[in-house]
């Protein structure tokens, strides 16, 4: 039985050294391209709107690839295949929701957020909540909830970045963290989201190419999926059962949290503001879903392939499940392929970190001042300053807090889901939602997630098999949202501005 905490911990893997000339050369080339893109973007960033939403000027293909890139963390390359190796097909329920989440996000959020951006010039997700409920307090509360989640995500990504860079260049974990965060910070602070988007495009392309090549290699090396399955069925049939070695409740719980929760992930939702022409949304879900499928081929291929190769004696037994990808790359695949994947993992962590730095900075210098009734005069200057502070705080947290970093990473995803999904995703589509309902649900999501995760981390409380804090908090947040909105329903209709109402009715 593996819990949500267990699989997140797999991100905190210690990778073996891959510092060979080909890996170092590809890694150096990767960082050179990132720096070149950043210099180009910095020359085109002149206003706060440029900095936070790329002047609403990103084309369809670039936005799609960038969105795929930030939706996939290093977990898809290292921790995920390790989890499949450990628990079998049950681990697929984390990524299977991709079949519905992108189009669900398009129907539920994309159009309305993009049109709100058109009507009001909105830049952030809390902006949308503030506009919907006509409430700076709701905007501030959403911002606080997101900031708490961002702390966890950023620290986790900073550590993952350090682990990968150390593996490629053999510079030590501490230097790996600071080199990775330094480069990410350089392009975040200078070129803002424009640098982030075009680096995401490069990084997403790299991840997709690496994923497809590894998947094809695994199929070829294993003699096809049928032969791989036959090997596994001969040694461990439960591995290829519909739930793997998880209970049905646990596997289905993964599906619920990672499908419904996707509507509250700011790194993906924030992108809806940036599309140059709202009519291009037509092809966005199809392109993004296909892109995600390509990037996630490695997740499935390596997890299942390595299991078969170990069972057939073609690979040595793994020291731990999270060595599935590194062992395959360093001992079986051509070294150039290994070099591509290691750079792809660095790319995944850097694109996620950049996105969260940008979103966190926007909350601190835009949403929180609005909640307190103030507006900063030079949002671009403040945005750059806050970006530096957030990146430095994440790097220090990653370096100093040891196992606490893993704990911080655990609740990030669930916290975004429980604080944002009801108020944002349902609220933008249901005129019966009220400010009181939204604030109660955001507060409940924040408090319940933190309380349950802290209790579980300190071993004061153990969840029953198959139940996670994220799932409980998400369901509670929804039910509280509906209940409080129903109790305060007499205020609902009058509390929507005409332009917001029009956007909700279209």
């Amino acid at each position, binding site marked *: 039985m593996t819990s949500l905490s267990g699989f997140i911990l797999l991100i905190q893997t210690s990778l073996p050294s891959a510092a060979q000339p080909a890996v170092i050369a590809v890694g150096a080339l990767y960082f050179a391209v990132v720096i070149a893109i950043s210099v180009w973007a910095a020359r085109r960033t002149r206003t706060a709107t440029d900095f936070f939403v790329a002047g609403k000027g990103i084309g369809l293909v670039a936005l799609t690839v960038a969105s795929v890139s930030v939706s996939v963390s290093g977990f898809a390359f290292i921790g995920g295949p390790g989890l499949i190796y450990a628990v079998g*097909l049950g681990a*697929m329920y984390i990524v*299977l929701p*991709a*079949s*519905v989440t992108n*189009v*669900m996000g*398009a*129907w*539920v*959020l994309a159009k309305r957020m993009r*049109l709100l951006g*058109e*009507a009001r010039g909105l830049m952030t997700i809390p902006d949308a909540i503030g506009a919907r409920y006509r409430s700076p307090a709701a905007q501030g509360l959403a911002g606080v909830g997101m900031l708490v989640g961002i702390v966890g995500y950023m620290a986790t990504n900073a550590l993952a970045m350090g682990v990968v860079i150390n593996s490629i260049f053999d510079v030590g974990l501490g230097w790996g963290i600071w080199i990775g965060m330094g480069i990410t910070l350089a392009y975040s602070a200078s070129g803002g989201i424009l640098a982030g988007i075009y680096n995401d495009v490069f990084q997403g392309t790299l991840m997709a190419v690496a994923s497809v090549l590894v998947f094809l290699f695994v199929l070829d090396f294993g003699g*096809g*999926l*049928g032969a791989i*399955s*036959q090997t596994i*069925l*001969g040694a461990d*049939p*439960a591995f*290829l*059962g*519909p*739930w793997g070695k998880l*209970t*049905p*409740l646990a596997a*289905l719980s993964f599906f*619920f949290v990672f499908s*419904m929760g996707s*509507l509250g992930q700011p790194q993906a939702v924030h992108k809806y503001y940036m599309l140059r022409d*709202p*009519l291009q*949304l*037509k092809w966005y*879900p*199809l392109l993004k*879903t296909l892109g995600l499928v390509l990037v996630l081929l490695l997740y499935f291929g390596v997890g299942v392939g390595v299991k078969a190769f170990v069972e057939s004696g073609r690979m040595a037994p793994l020291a731990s499940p999270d060595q599935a990808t590194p062992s395959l790359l360093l001992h079986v695949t051509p070294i150039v392929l290994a070099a591509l994947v290691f750079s792809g993992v660095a790319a995944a962590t850097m694109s996620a970190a950049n996105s969260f730095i940008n979103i966190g900075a926007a909350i601190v210098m835009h949403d929180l001042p609005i909640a307190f009734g103030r507006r900063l005069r030079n949002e671009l200057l403040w945005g750059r300053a806050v970006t530096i502070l957030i990146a430095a705080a994440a790097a220090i947290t990653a370096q100093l807090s040891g196992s606490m970093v893993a704990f911080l990473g655990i609740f990030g995803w669930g916290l975004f889901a429980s604080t944002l999904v009801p108020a944002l995703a*349902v609220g933008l*589509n249901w005129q019966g939602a009220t400010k009181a309902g939204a604030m109660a649900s955001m507060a409940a999501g924040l408090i319940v997630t933190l309380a349950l995760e802290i209790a579980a981390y300190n071993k004061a409380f153990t969840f*029953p*098999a*198959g*139940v996670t804090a994220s*799932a409980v908090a998400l*369901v*509670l947040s*929804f*039910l509280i949202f*509906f209940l409080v909105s129903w109790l305060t329903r007499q205020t609902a209709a009058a509390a929507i501005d*005409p*332009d917001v109402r*029009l*956007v909700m*009715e*279209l």
Partner: protein
Amino acid sequence: MLVIALSAIAIAYGSAFFPTGAPHWAPWLLALGIPFSLGAIMILGAARGARGVGPLKIPFAFVIVTLAVGFCAALILPATESPASTLWLGLPARAAIVIYGIGLLPIIVLPVAYALTFESQTLTADDIERVRSLAREIAKNQTTSAASDDPSS
């Protein structure tokens, strides 16, 4: 439908806290609650006033049924995986239902349905112009109102 589906999911989670552990019916509540909650929120997002979801009711029904049947089949079919199992596109039957049915079938249907119905059901250039026009009108009224409130004007 969303509230009922989420309540079913909440009951499933709540039942897992029983001293004897999750009852055998708990996964069934999730297997049905998840497809209906996802379907309900998609319908909520896609509905356009009195026109509702129009032709999208077919893909939405397809996806809800596909997910529900896939999850329930995984729960109900006996565990027969062995080296002698017949493979479906390289996987034993129950795994193939999960990977290809739940993981791939909706990809073929939903994004294509979204694109094909985009102009009729989601967004047109006229919709965008209506939003821009109202925004301009509101901005103009605010400017006029601010000017009339200004004692120096």
